C-alpha cells in the first residue's frame, strides 16, 4: 500500500507533465488530446486512497513521503492532512473541468494548445499541493502561474491579450515578492528548508533576528503579498475580474475554484505555525475584511455573470485571508482555525466550480426554444449559490459555523466584532448570488455565437451536463462528505447540521427577499434582470483599480533610450566626418613629406647634427 501511495505521489504531477510533452510531436498530439481531461485521475486516486488510511496521530504528520534527492535541489514530496483535502477537491474540480472542456471545445480548432496549457497548469497545481519543501513548492507554483497564462489568453482576442498581459505582470510581481521572501528563509536556513520542523526553526531564528536579512515581520509580509497576488488580496486582485470573463469557462472555473486556493495553501505551508506574527495577521485581517465587502459591492454592479462570480471569489478569499490572519496571530487556534479554513476552502471550491460551469452550460442553451432546459439549469445553479450564501444544512453553513466555533474559543473583542460581521457577510453573499442568477437569466446571447448550437442530449451534452451536475450535487450534499474529506483532529468537534439554524437562515432569507423585490419591480421583460436605473449609472469599469494605475503609467515620461542612442550615433558620425577632414589635411602634409626630401636634406640633417652635437657635448 505504502509503495502504491508513493508512486501515486510522483504520478500526480508527472502524468499531466507527460501528457503536455506529447504535444511537441505532431503525431502524438491526438493521444495527448484524449488523455488530457483525465490527467487529474492519479491525484484523485491518491486523495481517495490516502483518505482510507487511519487518521494520523497528530495533525501535521505526513501520511506518505517520497524524497527525490537527484531532482532539482533535492525534492521531497509529502501528503499530509491539509494536502489530502486540498488534493481531493482540486482533482475533483480538474476532472470536472477537463470533461467539460473536452465537450465545450470539441469544435475549437486550437484545442490542442488549450489542453497543452491545461495539463501544464494541472501539473503545477497538483505538484504544489504535494510539494514537501520550499523550492519544490515554488517550482510548481511558478509552473502553474505561467502555464495558466495560456488558458487565460486562449481566445487570443484583444481583451483576452490585455487581460493576459495584466495577469502575467501581476503574476511576475507576485513571483518576485515570493522569491524575495524565500531568499530570506533560504538565507537564514542556509539552503532549502522542508515544510514542517525545518521551516519552523527557520522562523524561530528569523523572529530572534539572527537571519542575515530583514526581520521576521518583513519576510512574512513579503510571502503573504507574494501569495496574495494569486489569492486575490485587495490591492493585488486586479487581474481576477479581468481574467475570468475572457478565459474559456472551464478555465475560469478551475482558476477560481482551484488555482487561487494555491495562495491559501501557500500561506498555510510557508507561514509559521508556532511563532506568532502580529503585523502580518493584522494586514491579512484588514485586507480580508475589506476584500469581503468590496467584492460584494463591486460584484453587484456587474453585468457579466462571470465577472460577478470573479468578485464573489475575491470576497470569499477575503474570508479565508481573515481566517489565515487569525491563525497566524494566535497559533493556539491552530486546530480549530485550520479545520475551519479547510472546510471553507473545499466548500468554496466545489460551489464556485459548479456556478462557473453553469454559466458555460447557459451559453450552450438555445434561445427561445425549450425554456424548459434553461429553467433546469437555473434551478440547479441555485443549489450551490445557496450553499455559498451559507444556508443552513449546506456545506456553507457548516464551514461558517466551524469558523464561528473556533473564534468562540478565542473570545475577546475580535470575537464580538466577528459575531456581527459574519451575518452581514452572509447577507452580502446572498445578494451577490441573487445578482448572479439575474445576470445568468439574461445570458441570452452566448459568449461566442459560433459555438452556440445546442447539442442534442448525445455524447456532447452528456459530458457537458454530467460534470456540472456532479459538482452541483456535491455542493448541495456538502454536509455529508465534507467532514470525511477533512481529517478533523480529536479535540475538534464539528457543529451538527442543526446548530445556529436561526442565525444562519435569517440573512439568506432577507437577501432572497430583497432580490425578489428588485426582480419583480422591473416590469418589462427585457429590463427584468437589469439593475434599477439609479444603480445602473454607477458602473464599475472592468479591472476597477487598474484604470487609474494605467492612466498614471501613460502620463509618466519614460525616458526613450532609442532617441538617446540615435543622438549618440549621430554625434559619432559627425566625429568620424571631422576625423576624415583632419586626415585629408594629413594627406597634404604627407605629400610634402616626400617633397621635402629635396629640401629636407637642406635643413633637417644639419638641425639633427647640431642638436646631437650640443647634447653630446653637454652629456
Amino acid at each position, binding site marked *: 500500500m505504502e509503495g502504491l501511495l508513493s508512486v501515486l505521489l510522483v504520478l500526480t504531477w508527472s502524468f499531466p507533465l507527460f501528457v503536455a510533452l506529447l504535444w511537441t510531436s505532431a503525431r502524438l498530439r491526438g493521444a495527448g488530446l484524449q488523455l488530457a481531461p483525465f490527467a487529474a485521475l492519479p491525484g484523485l486516486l491518491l486523495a481517495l486512497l490516502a483518505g482510507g488510511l487511519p487518521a494520523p496521530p497528530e495533525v501535521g504528520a505526513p501520511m506518505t513521503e517520497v524524497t527525490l534527492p537527484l531532482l532539482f535541489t533535492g525534492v521531497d514530496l509529502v501528503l499530509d492532512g491539509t494536502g489530502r483535502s486540498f488534493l481531493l477537491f482540486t482533482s475533483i474540480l480538474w476532472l470536472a473541468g477537463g470533461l467539460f472542456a473536452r465537450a465545450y471545445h470539441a469544435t475549437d480548432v486550437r484545442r490542442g494548445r488549450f489542453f497543452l496549457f491545461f495539463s501544464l497548469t494541472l501539473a503545477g497545481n497538483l505538484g504544489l499541493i504535494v510539494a514537501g519543501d520550499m523550492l519544490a513548492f515554488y517550482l510548481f507554483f511558478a509552473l502553474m502561474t505561467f502555464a495558466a497564462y495560456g488558458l487565460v489568453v486562449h481566445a487570443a482576442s484583444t481583451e483576452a491579450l490585455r487581460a493576459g498581459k495584466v495577469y502575467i505582470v501581476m503574476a511576475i510581481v507576485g513571483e518576485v515578492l515570493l522569491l524575495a521572501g524565500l531568499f530570506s528563509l533560504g538565507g537564514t536556513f542556509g539552503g532549502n528548508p522542508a515544510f514542517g520542523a525545518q521551516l519552523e526553526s527557520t522562523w524561530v531564528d528569523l523572529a530572534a533576528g539572527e537571519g542575515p536579512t530583514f526581520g521576521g515581520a518583513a519576510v512574512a509580509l513579503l510571502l503573504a503579498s507574494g501569495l496574495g497576488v494569486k489569492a486575490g488580496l485587495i490591492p493585488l486582485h486586479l487581474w481576477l475580474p479581468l481574467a475570468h470573463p475572457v478565459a474559456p469557462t472551464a478555465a475560469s472555473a478551475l482558476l477560481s475554484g482551484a488555482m487561487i486556493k494555491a495562495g491559501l495553501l501557500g500561506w498555510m505551508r510557508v507561514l509559521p505555525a508556532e511563532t506568532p506574527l502580529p503585523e502580518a495577521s493584522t494586514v491579512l485581517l484588514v485586507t480580508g475584511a475589506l476584500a469581503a465587502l468590496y467584492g460584494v459591492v463591486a460584484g453587484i454592479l456587474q453585468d457579466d455573470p462571470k465577472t460577478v462570480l470573479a468578485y464573489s471569489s475575491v470576497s470569499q478569499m477575503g474570508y479565508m485571508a481573515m481566517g489565515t490572519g487569525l491563525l497566524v496571530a494566535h497559533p493556539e487556534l491552530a486546530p480549530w482555525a485550520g479545520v475551519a479554513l479547510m472546510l471553507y476552502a473545499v466548500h468554496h471550491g466545489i460551489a464556485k466550480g459548479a456556478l462557473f460551469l453553469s454559466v458555460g452550460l447557459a451559453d450552450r442553451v438555445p434561445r427561445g426554444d425549450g425554456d424548459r432546459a434553461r429553467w433546469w439549469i437555473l434551478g440547479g445553479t441555485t443549489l450551490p449559490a445557496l450553499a455559498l450564501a451559507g444556508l443552513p444544512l449546506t456545506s456553507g453553513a457548516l464551514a461558517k459555523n466551524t469558523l464561528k466555533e473556533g473564534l468562540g474559543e478565542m473570545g475577546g473583542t475580535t470575537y464580538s466584532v466577528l459575531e456581527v460581521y459574519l451575518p452581514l457577510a452572509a447577507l452580502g453573499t446572498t445578494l451577490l448570488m441573487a445578482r448572479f442568477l439575474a445576470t445568468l437569466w439574461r445570458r441570452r446571447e452566448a459568449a461566442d455565437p459560433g459555438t452556440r448550437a445546442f447539442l442534442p442530449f448525445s455524447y456532447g451534452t452528456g459530458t457537458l451536463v454530467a460534470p456540472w451536475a456532479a459538482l452541483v450535487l456535491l455542493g448541495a450534499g456538502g454536509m455529508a462528505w465534507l467532514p470525511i474529506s477533512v481529517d478533523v483532529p480529536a479535540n475538534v468537534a464539528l457543529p451538527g447540521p442543526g446548530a445556529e439554524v436561526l442565525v444562519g437562515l435569517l440573512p439568506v432569507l432577507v437577501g432572497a427577499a430583497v432580490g425578489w423585490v428588485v426582480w419583480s419591480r422591473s416590469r418589462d421583460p427585457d429590463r427584468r434582470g437589469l439593475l434599477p436605473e439609479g444603480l445602473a449609472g454607477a458602473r464599475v469599469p472592468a479591472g476597477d483599480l487598474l484604470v487609474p494605475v494605467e492612466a498614471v503609467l501613460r502620463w509618466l515620461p519614460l525616458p526613450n533610450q532609442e532617441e538617446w542612442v540615435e543622438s549618440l550615433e549621430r554625434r559619432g558620425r559627425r566625429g568620424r566626418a571631422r576625423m576624415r577632414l583632419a*586626415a585629408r589635411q*594629413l*594627406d597634404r602634409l*604627407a605629400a610634402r*613629406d*616626400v617633397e*621635402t*626630401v629635396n629640401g*629636407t*636634406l637642406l635643413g*633637417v*640633417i644639419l*638641425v*639633427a*647634427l647640431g*642638436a*646631437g*652635437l650640443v*647634447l*653630446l*657635448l*653637454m*652629456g
Partner: protein
Amino acid sequence: MTGAELWTTAAVFGPLLASLVALGGRPAALKAGLLLGSVTTLAGSLGLWLQVLQHGPVRHLLGGWGAPLGIELWADGFSVVMLAVTALVGAAVSLYSLSYFGDLSTLDAETSPAGRAARYFVPLWLLLWSALNGIYLSADLFNLYVTLEILGLAAAALVTLAVTPRATVAGMRYLIVSLVGSMLFLLGVALLYTEFGTLALEELSAAAPGGPMAATSLALMTVGMAAKTALFPLHAWLPPAHAGAPAPASALLSAVVVKGSFFILVRLWFAVYGGGSEAGLVLMGGLGAAAILWGSVLALRQRSLKRVIAYSTVAQLGYMFVMFPLLAPEGLGGPDPRWSDDAWIGGILLAVSHALAKASMFMAAGNMSYAVARDGLRDISGVAHRLPMSFLAFGLGGLSLAGLPPSAGFVGKWLLLREALSAGGWFWVAIITVGGLLTIAYVLKVLRHALDREASDGDFRPVPRRMEWAALLLALASASLGVRATEVFQVLLQGGVQPWT
C-alpha cells in the same frame, strides 16, 4: 685554427665568392651562386652561434696581425643573432627570387628588363649579403666604412633594378643619401683617429672616449647612420625606394639592409662610447617615438599596399631606437652603468621579429603584384581570395609587428614594457602601446580590403607555390619565435650591451 676563423671566413667571404660565381650570368651560375651564398652563410652563422654560446665572444685576427695594426673579425651575441636573422631572411628571399623573375633560362638579359633584373639581382644581393655579414663581424672603424659603401652601392642598385621612372628617382635619392651618410661617417672616423690614433673598436672603448672631439665624431657618425637607417627626420627617402623596388629587393631592403646601419649605431653608442650621454639617449628615443607616430600615421594614409608596408618600416625602426633610453634606466653614472637585460633583449627581439615579419609582408605583397600587376588597396580584395597563403603570411607578419601573440614582437614588447614600467618611464610605456595600436590600425586597413566580399576575377597570373611558401615560412618563424625564444635570450647575454668592458 679554432672554428671561429673558419665560420667567420665562411660568413663573410662565402657570399662574396658566390657573387663572383653568379657574375657568370647564365641561370646555372645564378642558381649556383645563390646556393653557395646561402649554404656558406647559414653554416657560418650556425657555427658562430654555437661557438659564441659556449665560449662567449670570439675573434679572428685577419692577416695574423693584432688589433691596432691589422683588422679583426669579432662576433658576440648581438652580431651572431643579426647574422642568423639575415641568413634566414636571405635564404628565404633567395628561394623567392628564383621564381619571382620568371623562368631564368628563357629570359634574355639584353632585351627584357625582367631578364636584366634577374641576371644582376643575384650578384648584387650576394655582395650585399657579404657586406652585411662583414658589418656584423667587423671590429674596425675604417673597415666598417668600406663595408658600408658596398652595402650602399649594392642596395641602391637593387632599387634601380625596377624599370619605372619613379623607382629610378628613388634609387638615385637613396644613393645620394647613402653616400652623404658614408661621408659623414668617414669624417667621424677621421676625428676619432685624430683623437685616439687607433681604428680598433676594442681599443677605442678601452680609451673611453668622452671629450668634445669624441662627442662631435659620435654626432657625425650618428647623423650619417641615421640617414642610412632612415630614422625619423631623415626617413623620407625610404618609402619610395623600398616600395618601388622589385619585391625580393624591397623585402631585403626593409628587413635586413636598414638593420646594418642600426647595428653600427648600437655598437658605437654602447660598446664604444659606453652609452654616449643620457640626454643623447633620450634624444635618440625621442626621435624613435616620433618615427613610430609619424610612420604609422602616414602608413594609415597610403593607398598602395607596398607604400603602407614601407612606411610601416619607418615606424617599426622607431621601436628599435626606443630601446636606447630604456637600456640605461638609472642613467650612465657610476663606473659600470647597469644595462637592463630586459630592454636589450626586448629591443633586439623586436628587431629580429621586424626583420622576419617585414620580409614576409613584402613577399606577400610581391605575390599579389606578381599576380595582378597592380598594388592598390582597392585591388587586394580580388586577389586575397585566390592567394590565401600569402595573405595568411601578411596577417601573421602584421600580428608580429603589432606585438600581438603568438609572435616575437609580443615577447619583445612585453620585455620593453617591463623595463619601462620598472624604471617608471611612463612616456615610453605610452609610446610602445600607442605604437602597437597604430600598427594594428594600418594592418587592419589592409586586411579589411582583403576580406571584402566581391572577388574581381580580372586576368590573374598564377603565383608559383614556392613564392607563397617562402613568405609563409618567415611569418611562421616569427610566430614560433614568439613561443620559444630562450636560445636567443641566452646567446644575447654573451657579450651583452658593452662586450669590451
